[in-house]
């Protein structure tokens, strides 16, 4: 959970650096996705992750968007969706590819919702959205690597 706060701050700093040039990928949501799948699926724990992702999203909205609450809404529903699929998948099927699929879909959905909320269809907005999603790929790969390392560590 501390890591979630650290990631939020790092994402904020990265957005300050790239302000006006590009949108930073949603490292916070990817970290929340990782947090869900990397531990036990207890209901209390998952509920805490949901509220943390909601709080981070609300803070992000107040800092960077004109629609406070939107990121909180998207984050909480994304985390719920990831949990729902992950919990219903047999343990043997839970792997890095599923994690990549779920986190990637969450990131794409979050980006698309924000893009639609901008209520603008300019090429610049589209370019920023696409750049954010493309930059999200290495971020997702990094998360997958972290997940794999953790997975191997737990096997030993």
């Amino acid at each position, binding site marked *: 959970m501390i890591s979630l706060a650290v990631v939020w701050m790092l994402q904020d*700093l990265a957005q300050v650096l790239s302000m006006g040039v590009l949108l930073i990928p949603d490292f916070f949501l990817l970290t929340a996705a990782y947090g869900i799948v990397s531990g036990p699926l207890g209901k209390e724990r*998952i509920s805490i992750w949901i509220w943390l992702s*909601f709080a981070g999203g*609300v803070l992000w909205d*107040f800092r960077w968007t004109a629609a406070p609450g*939107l990121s909180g*809404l998207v984050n909480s529903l994304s985390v719920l969706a990831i949990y729902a699929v992950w919990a219903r998948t047999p343990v043997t099927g839970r792997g890095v590819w599923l994690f990549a699929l779920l986190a990637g879909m969450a990131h794409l959905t979050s980006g698309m919702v924000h893009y639609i909320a901008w209520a603008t269809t300019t090429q610049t907005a589209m370019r920023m959205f696409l750049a954010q999603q493309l930059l999200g790929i290495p971020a997702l790969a990094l998360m997958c690597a972290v997940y794999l390392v953790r997975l191997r560590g737990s096997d030993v």
Partner: protein
Amino acid sequence: MTGKLNPVLVNALIAAFCGLMLMWFSHTFQYPARTAADTINSMLYYPELPARELRFLVQAADNWMTERKNLQERTLVLEQENIALRTALQRSGVNPPQSSPRLLGASVTLRYPDAWWKEIRVDKGSSQGVLAGAPVLSDGFMIGRVSRIGEDYAWIELVTSSTFLLAAVVVDTWDLGVINGDDIGNIWLMYMPPEEEFSEGMLVSTALVGDYLPPGIPLGLIVGPGETRDGLTPFRVASGARLAQLYNVQILLSSGEGGSS
């Protein structure tokens, strides 16, 4: 009934509902929403400071690079223009200077009060390649020429000296005259044809008088006519340089001069 509900689902739905309510609230009541946003921005001011400073630094570096690129492009344009002008000079039968003169910076080391408008001494001499008769410039305008040389110093006769005589040309009309000073700070363009009209602001530059002095060095701008004598009207010329205060000047050296003794 409530016991069958998954608490994760309940929490997520409550959070989503809170998000929706927040969106509605911030849309309906903009003032408190903006206040909250301002508060959070204020709280993040110091944590974000390093990133913000780094961003300004990057922007400043980018601006510097852009300016440098613009200067390089400008230099390229000027070089091309110079080549075109040299070509035009050659076609019109005027030989452009073959040498590539360079400017030697010099500091004024002595200026006598009683010869304020006549001469100055500078800290560069024959050991730096200074030759007698070499033109001396300040702010891009010729302010005199080397009259006497020592090993490490040189005396410059100023254009405001009454003993200074130099062939000059009015650039707009190509009329020739002679530049002369009056020892009290004025520069005059002498022996101008009375039938010609010279308006204020016309550029006067050096004429082609010999190899030691390149033509086209700006001397000043015409200010107005003086008193006509013997059918000839002198014109007062204002130098572009600040002749009253000379601290640093440039001596024009021909190629191969300077740096070696």
